[in-house]
């Protein structure tokens, strides 16, 4: 399954934690993809 996450105006509208959400979603998707290939 393919899903796309949009992060709008990260340089102008980022507040605490936004970056963390993006990092954790990216990380989780990599883990999920790796797990599904096993």
């Amino acid at each position: 399954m393919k899903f796309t996450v949009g992060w709008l105006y990260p340089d102008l509208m980022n507040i605490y934690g936004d970056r963390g959400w993006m990092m954790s979603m990216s990380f989780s998707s990599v883990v999920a993809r790796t797990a599904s290939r096993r």
Partner: protein
Amino acid sequence: MIRKTAAVWAGKATGTLSRVSRRGGGTTLPGDVARIIDPKILTRLAQDLTYGSIVVTGTNGKTTTARLLSWLLEGAGHRVVANRAGANLIFGVTAAALNRAGSDGRLKADWGVFEIDEASLPKAVDEIQPRATLVLNLFRDQLDRYGELETIAKKIEKALGAVPETSRAILNADDPRVAEIGLNLARKPLWYGLDDISVASTTLPHAADARTCPRCGSSLIFDAVYVGHDGVYRCPNHDFSRPTPEIAATNIKLDGFDSLALTIDGTRIEMPLGGLYNCYNVLAAYAAARSIDLTAAYIADRLRTFKAAFGRQERVEFRGRHLILVLSKNPAGFNETVRTAVELAQGKNFIVGLNDRKADGTDVSWIWDVDFEMLKGKADVVIPAGNRAHDLAVRLKYAGVAAEQPQTDSGKALDLLIKSTREGDTAYLLCTYTAMLDLRAELVRRGWASPYWET
């Protein structure tokens, strides 16, 4: 007068009880008690000062800058009252003044040097009526407590608009938000800033806040970036640009956390403080000192022997290890202390402390704005500590940093540091405010450091 004296006595008694019972250093509670008895106690005490007060505000650097100023004034023979322990709400300032008041209720000092929490500035300025107000910088910090930068900027602008006509605003021209405040004032401020592109970057860190022109909203062009969003900037539509600093630092040399050197007005200043962010603090203190007629030669000579405040590059020897405690309390500050430790000091060993108490900010999601990625591949030992050590461990994992097991107990964090390092190693303790106090308290308990109110 009777009310004032009663308030002073009650405050002093509270301070003594606080210290004797070891419930704290008596740096805040005496102020609470005295202000209940006489709500105007701070105004009355400030009026006793021979020459007046200088107040210091901004997100980062308040304690160090205030301490630099006190150091300069005391060296010139002045009696100085200051809230040295960093209790910078109105109660802390009141407590500091009470501590120096005599049994007759009069404050026996020539100058007051007070660091003031940004949100408390309007009240402090109203009560103290300072002779000079220094605004160092404005970065995002404790959004849950302060709100957005614009909210704080408006409060500071309002406060500066209400100071006496004889009072001078001394502002950091390199900070776009501070500059906007100063450009809106009726009286021209004294501007200071850095002028040395050899220590500048050309790109803003992602956590930089003041990216847009406050007049037209266009993205600012940064010709130099020094710390966070502090640098040399201009609006592409010519609506706004960095004011030209009257007091500028050039020829900057940095040596890790050990020392810095810079030239101001042709005077070379060398001192035992590290980091580019401290160049701003030195420059701010220099500007304030010159504004009250201390000479450049005297300032340079006096600063050579400066000693930092507790937890601000404070050095402690602990079982053969050299510990350097560095307060790091928000994204901009943390980025600078990590950068200084890794790039300038080649640091390898770290305790990173994160607490979520009121003084730290209860929302710790700001750690995701800190570039801990700088530690990846550079640090040998990284110990997440503090009551939110596990949050920090997750953040470090995402940064690709191989950290040790998180330690919520300060003693265990120090024990793990000893176990993971060798005698002669240097370790950097980068901590939020109360996490730093917890580690210091453990070092005091083990007999390796003095209580913070004695530093």
